């Protein structure tokens, strides 16, 4: 076992007794998960799904000892979603802070709790214990199962609509590791919008490991908009597992900006016919940033549609990676699967890797994927310069337009505008840096 994996295993041994659910079923699950993790170790380049991100090596660079429970005041940084009226749930170092959250007046039929409060409930157990195929990509979830300390648990009863978006703020205030688990259960016909912000608030060297377990009942609707803007010396690892029943509609958009290294995985599985999943994202990276997106869609039943678009802009010596996989199981006829990834390389040292995969076992399907990597079109820059824009503005305009096409896929108007502003700021930061 490498140093990083060892530290994580030691964390568990030290904290086992104090982790939530220590006396119940979860303790057994945790021990099992840790044993599996200890056996497999951290994923590395020879694990196909981690070909471009060597966790074994990269995690050596950040502090992994569990971050302390931060009780004192926190400088709440302004978040992109601030202007909107939202319910707010704040986690600091991966632990719920009631004093910073505002969860009053939730509609009837909406249950929103910190994770620890629901661990005795059956629905939570069902979500956590859900077995996904234990392959190279999902195996790392074991680490979270073993060490998760807190998180958000949201359950919405049949037919209930969450009247305002829920804003989940994830702050890193101290160095170290934070392992959070979020559970979302939308019963039949329920609907919700969730914003997520990941920000650094004082921590410098840290590791965020979060897993979201989502289940959408028939015709339920969930819209997620996530902003990942971690601190300079961090590793952000997030895995999202969503299962969709018939007619459910799942939208997820992730904008990745700050943070030294990130790996974001999503696993969407269709359980019922007629469901739709839109998993999209954009990232703008510079310096020595690295972002690896792994996007897995499993069409297990007929007549579902999935659509994915990821756009990446890379400056400095940043490295971007997109790995996608659309699986169409036998008999999943009438599937419509689309996947597109585009990357713009703005500097000589930047690099991009893409691996959009299709795995198809049914014949009556429409599946397509595409991938492009290139630089800004010189003719387009020339066109703009001929119209009086200087080189920098011309490039900025083109890059913004490139990212905008992805941002356009955010269904929530307010959130879309908010993230557009974040992208605009990215360019100002460029000005400051040079």
């Amino acid at each position: 076992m490498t140093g990083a994996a060892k530290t994580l295993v030691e964390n568990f041994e030290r904290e086992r007794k104090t982790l939530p659910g220590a006396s119940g079923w979860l303790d057994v699950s945790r021990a099992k998960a840790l044993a599996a993790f200890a056996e497999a170790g951290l994923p590395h380049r020879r694990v196909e799904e981690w070909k471009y991100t060597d966790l074994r090596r990269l995690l050596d660079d950040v502090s992994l000892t569990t971050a302390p429970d931060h009780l004192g005041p926190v400088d709440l940084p302004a978040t992109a979603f601030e202007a909107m009226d939202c319910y707010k749930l704040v986690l600091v170092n991966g632990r719920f802070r009631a004093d910073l959250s505002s969860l009053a007046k939730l509609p009837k039929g909406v249950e929103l709790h910190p994770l620890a409060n629901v661990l005795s409930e059956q629905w939570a157990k069902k979500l956590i214990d859900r077995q996904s195929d234990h392959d190279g990509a999902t195996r790392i979830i074991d680490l979270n199962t073993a060490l998760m300390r807190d998180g958000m648990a949201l359950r919405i009863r049949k037919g209930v609509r969450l009247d305002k978006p829920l804003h989940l703020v994830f702050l890193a205030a101290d160095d170290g590791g934070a392992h959070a688990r979020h559970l979302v259960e939308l019963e039949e016909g329920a609907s919700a919008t969730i914003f997520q912000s990941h920000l650094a608030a004082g921590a410098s060297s840290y590791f965020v490991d979060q897993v979201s377990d989502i289940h959408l009942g028939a015709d339920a609707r969930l819209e997620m908009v996530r902003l990942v803007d971690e601190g300079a010396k961090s590793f952000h690892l997030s895995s999202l597992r969503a299962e969709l029943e018939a007619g459910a509609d799942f939208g997820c958009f992730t904008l990745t900006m700050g943070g030294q290294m990130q790996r974001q995985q999503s696993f969407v599985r269709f359980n019922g016919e007629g469901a739709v999943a839109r998993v999209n994202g954009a990232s703008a990276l510079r310096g020595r940033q690295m972002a690896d997106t792994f996007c897995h869609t499993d069409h297990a039943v007929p007549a579902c549609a999935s659509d994915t678009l990821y756009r990446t802009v890379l400056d400095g010596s940043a490295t971007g990676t997109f790995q996608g996989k659309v699986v169409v199981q036998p008999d999943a006829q009438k599937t419509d699967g689309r996947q597109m990834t585009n990357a713009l390389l703005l500097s000589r040292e930047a690099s991009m890797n893409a691996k959009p995969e299709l795995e198809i076992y049914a014949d009556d399907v429409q599946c397509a994927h595409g991938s492009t990597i290139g630089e800004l079109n010189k003719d387009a820059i020339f066109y703009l310069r001929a119209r009086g824009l200087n080189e920098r503005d011309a490039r900025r305009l083109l890059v913004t337009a490139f990212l905008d096409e992805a941002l356009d896929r955010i269904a929530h108007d307010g959130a879309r505008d908010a993230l557009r502003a974040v992208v605009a700021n990215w360019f100002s930061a460029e000005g400051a840096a040079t």
Partner: protein
Amino acid sequence: MVAIRETVQTVGEVEKYKYGFSTDIESDKAPLGLTEDTVRFISAKKNEPEWMLEWRLEAYRRWLTMEEPTWAKVEYPKIDFQDAYYYAAPKQTVAPKSLDEIDPKLLETYKKLGIPLIEQQMLAGIAVDAVFDSVSVVTTFKEKLKEVGVIFCPLSEAVRDHPDLVRKYLGSVVPTSDNFYATLNAAVFSEGSFVYIPEGVRCPMELSTYFRINERQTGQFERTLIIADKGSYVSYLEGCTAPQRDENQLHAAVVELVAHDDAEIKYSTVQNWYPGDEDGKGGIYNFVTKRGDCRGVNSKISWTQVETGSAITWKYPSCILRGDNSRGEFYSIAISNGHQQVDSGTKMIHLGKNTSSRIISKGISAGKSSNTYRGLVGVHRKAENVRNFTQCDSLLIGSHCSAHTVPYIESKNPGAILEHEATTSKISDEQLFYCRQRGMDEEEAVALIVNGFCRDVLQQLPMEFAVEAQKLVGISLEGSVG
């Protein structure tokens, strides 16, 4: 339209695998299994010089330390490498001096395969090297080629007659340590073709090798080496068949191409090894390493393949685009039916400036087969102005087959423009209806539509092969409808 009509005709006429017969001919075999002695035996049989034996032994020793690759999307029982013959040659006491001295049974075999070896009967303009199990039976038009300085002969002959060239180039594109099967090949390769086109020569005819596995329980390990010197051009064709048997036979070949400045190599394959029966019993395991090195500026290497046979295909013809302005092309049709498994694709490694590559892959899967495209487009940091276009289309026929696409795209240079697109679909009911309405039966209609689907690639084949390939497309899909 003639070709289409012919396709339709052949679909109706031809039996499932018409090359499935075997020739009853006495043969000379190496002892069963693979040891250092087998390697020595093969080398001795070929009268090889000491350095060649050393080269083989080094590869053999390395092979012992290597593990079989398992990353491809194919499944097969573990191969017992000790349960095969690594050398088999039709018995012939004296080497034939002319065609008249060749065993008539052999000539008959090739005639049945549609490869007449009597020069007068041949399609003008094609020189053939016919390889039967582990030896080359005959190479035609050798003299005529010699006049322009082109060397076209079995590799074993080249080792003896042109040792300098062989030593310089053998293993320079696919090193002996490259991968498990390439290393195995380096240790036990028995035959193959050697081609050298001198500077400025445009090879006056198509060169072709025809591979035939005949003997039971043997593997075929051929090694082809083609060198196109400055400013030269060559078009090379390769065809393969094997008898119908219920055992799996291993075919692990290596092909190395070297293109110097301004040279062009066009390499076409029509692979039609025995694919196994309807229950997936028997068939050839086709584990092949093919790689071309565009060593010089403005060089070009183009791979065209029609893959219809083999129980399992594991094959990635690649181009290393080292020279500035060099170009690599890959055109592929991979058809799988029954229980066939195909994992094939290409690698384009862009190292030089202004290099470009084009990948067109058409995968057609029917029956219970699985068909995977696996490709890599890599752009080195110093490779300026790289251009790549990749298109992978899959067609599924029937609901028990599968099609997969696994492209790797890695760019380290912002000036590179890389495009990849892939689609998967089935033959639409409208298309079928339209054809049926015009009096075709369903199988004919499918053959027609599939031929249309593959047209981009079929067009790249030399004319003589294109007709053959078009027929093959129809035949391979036989029984896939209904």
